[in-house]
């Protein structure tokens, strides 16, 4: 009952948050300099031509009127029409979201794998030179931002040793039998491993670029948690029972130590989705982030609104999911 009330409260706050985001994004993108009509003004356009174009895109109305029209549309699932693509915003955004989600999830998996490995190794080999070396490597991973990792990876594994694709999501010549835009998932479900491999070869470098800084954070937090857990009574008891150090870390300490890391991963995952913007651009990856940059450059107001609102919805949904997962995994919260 307590959990149900908490979920209900979170849903209400989520709705308020999204409404706030909608107001802010709508206002801000209309206040900052640069409007789409000025960008498409042809040579020789007269005042009447400018007025005609402004009216054509509904920008001749007052801000409150524009907002009311937009909100009314959103309530009915109509997020407007993109000025540049001339397609419904919702179709465009939902069409690209799967690519970004798959990339983010793969980055998350890589980050947890990298960070987890470094943390466990560092704990297992604590006090020695290997731990120091791992700390140094981790520090480098943490201090270099993802877009720089992207450039390094493009150079190393795309140009000097070209084993991975450095642009796009899939090889254009391949025929895709997919019904959804979750290409990776669908290729696995359809057992089209040739497509799975091609998708992974495209996705690996951008995912790794995103994963390295996050992996370093995961390693740092998990290692700290593991170190604290290793001194708890039940772990000491396990050692006295004769279990080896590796067994103690993996089977006794890791589960409890992972709880703070889980919260961190949840929070960082939302940043990871946001971080895809530049990395997707560098890898010409057809995701939401790449589309967001074009939308901003072209001042495609309806598309910017749609993308920001979807990002906000994603952030809140992920945070909600993490809270629920935490409650499920943590017995103290589960039982009140």
């Amino acid at each position, binding site marked *: 009952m307590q959990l149900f009330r908490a979920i209900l409260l979170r849903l209400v706050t989520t709705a308020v948050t999204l409404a706030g985001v909608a107001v802010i994004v709508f206002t801000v993108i209309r206040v900052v300099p640069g409007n789409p009509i000025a960008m498409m003004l042809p040579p020789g356009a007269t005042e009447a031509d400018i007025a*005609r174009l402004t009216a054509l895109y509904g920008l001749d109305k007052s801000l409150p009127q524009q907002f009311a029209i937009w909100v009314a549309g959103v309530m009915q699932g109509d997020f407007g029409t993109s000025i540049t693509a001339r397609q419904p915003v919702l179709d465009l955004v939902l069409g*690209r979201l799967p690519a970004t989600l798959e990339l983010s999830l793969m980055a998350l998996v890589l980050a947890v794998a990298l960070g987890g490995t470094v943390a466990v190794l560092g704990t297992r080999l604590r006090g020695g030179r290997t731990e120091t070396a791992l700390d140094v490597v981790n520090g480098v991973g943490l201090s270099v931002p993802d877009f720089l990792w992207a450039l390094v990876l493009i150079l190393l594994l795309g140009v000097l040793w070209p084993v*991975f694709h*450095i642009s*796009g999501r899939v090889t254009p010549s391949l025929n895709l039998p997919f019904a959804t835009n979750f290409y990776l998932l669908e290729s696995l479900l359809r057992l089209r491993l040739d497509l799975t491999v091609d998708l992974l070869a495209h996705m*690996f470098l951008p995912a790794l670029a995103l994963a390295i800084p996050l992996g370093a954070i995961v390693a740092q937090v998990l290692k700290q948690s593991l170190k604290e857990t290793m001194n708890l009574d039940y772990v000491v008891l396990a050692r006295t029972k004769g279990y080896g150090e590796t067994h103690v870390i993996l089977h006794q300490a890791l589960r409890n130590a992972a709880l703070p890391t889980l919260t961190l991963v949840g929070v960082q995952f939302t940043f990871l989705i946001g971080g895809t913007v530049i990395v997707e651009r560098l890898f010409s990856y057809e995701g939401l982030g790449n589309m967001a940059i074009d939308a901003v450059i072209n001042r495609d107001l309806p598309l910017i609104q749609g993308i920001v609102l979807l990002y906000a919805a994603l952030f809140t949904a992920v945070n909600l999911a993490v809270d629920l997962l935490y409650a499920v995994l943590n017995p103290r919260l589960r039982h009140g």
Partner: protein
Amino acid sequence: MQLNRRSLLKLSAASVAAGAIGLPARAQAIDELVIAYNVNLPSWDPTVGPSAVNPTIQGLYQSVFDQFILQQPDLSPAPGLLIEWGWNDDRTKVMMTVREGVTWHDGSPFTAEDVAWSLERAANPETGNPINFVWSTLGNFAVEGNTVTADVKQFDPTIFKWMYFLTGYVLPKAYYEKVGADGFEAAPIGTGPYMVDKFERNAFVRLKANANYWGGKPEFETVTIKFVTDALARVAEVESGNSHVTLEMPYEEYDRLKGGPLAGVAKPVSDIGMIFLNDIDVMLDPNVRKAAAMAIDKQTIIDRLLSGYGVKIDTLQTPEYDAYDASITVPYDPEGAKKLLAESGYGPDKPVKFTIQTTRGFKPKDYEMVQAIVGLWRKVGIEAEIEVYEIAKHYELRAADTLAPAAFYNWGNSVGDPTTSTGFAMFGPSPHSVWDGEDLINMIGPLWGEADEDKRIAGWKAVDKYIAENALVIPLLQYVQPILHAPGVKVVPHASGALLPHLMTRA
């Protein structure tokens, strides 16, 4: 299959191997041409919305659609879907003869009806053609056989030039009316050299050669154009062999790679760098304007910052344009600049102050060029403060006539007519101009409708001379477009800046 450590390792190795196999090798014979393009294609209708007036997208459109009149790589017009065109003697009617035997990509015949319908549609403001006011100068179309005639509602000497410029495309009447705007967006057809095979927004377009193309089937059967908007990523694309051709990269990268593993071609295009002067504040003083123009060593800036890739210009016309006049020059004369400033009471100890706006990274070395110019100005007694803005803000400020006293910008004019360079940039009532002087308005006004072509071009040259003598704008340079390509491809650059796959052949 049970997933364990061993099977995961196998899968990883397989991924790497398959990924490597899938990568095109530069040395291999090119079956499928891959181009890393510098811009996304948001929409397929070349006559509607912002994409229609974006010069960098036109090369993509021209691969699928034909314009009314063909434009050759040197910017000159040539028979295309229209094989003849012109006015009657009193300029009250236009006559166009349509090429016969052309088919649309769906196999249906292209007719004169398509031409008339495309022109009528372009003139209709409800379709959203941003340039409908140009097309609306024609009306009452009549079709007879392969001839289209129309009444001239308002004489525009450049109307046929617009037929190979922005939104000047022929679309299929019957097909468009059948499938509607959304259907056309989903499956566009044209009469152009390539047909759309597959399109992934923000990712790529895959084109198949049009075997029935009236200009002859293109050499490459399949062309994939990837949208790679980051310049360094494009360089990596060609350097790694993932793509065969790319364009618009830093000149240092171009120099590094051409002549090595890749070949390169760098030719001037119809895009210039310039500084708008707004007739406000200190720019109302002719001595300040002239000094600002004379104090800029354009050639040194081109040599030092652009590795020599640029052509110095002193008017808004490049050598390829119709009204280019090599006799109009503005000398680099810092001493002369100092004298002029001194006449107005300024000097290095008492500098004249104003703001110059510029983009940063929108064009090659834009900010660095402005920095260099500000440095040169400082030596003669001009203290300019640099304000960096986004290109979107530039458009808005320019349309509202609220640019700073000086503002760096680039201007494209791929038809090479003086109306679409000097005309729109300097005619006060134009939303693109920030110079509102009546003297210039009076000089330019009569030229808009001048029917005598020689007289019209001479008139524009006189305008350019007047502008240069009074320093009403500071033209800087004509850009050079760098193209890198695999040695197995021969690329023909187009002076409009459009990278056209049907002009590419195997070397």
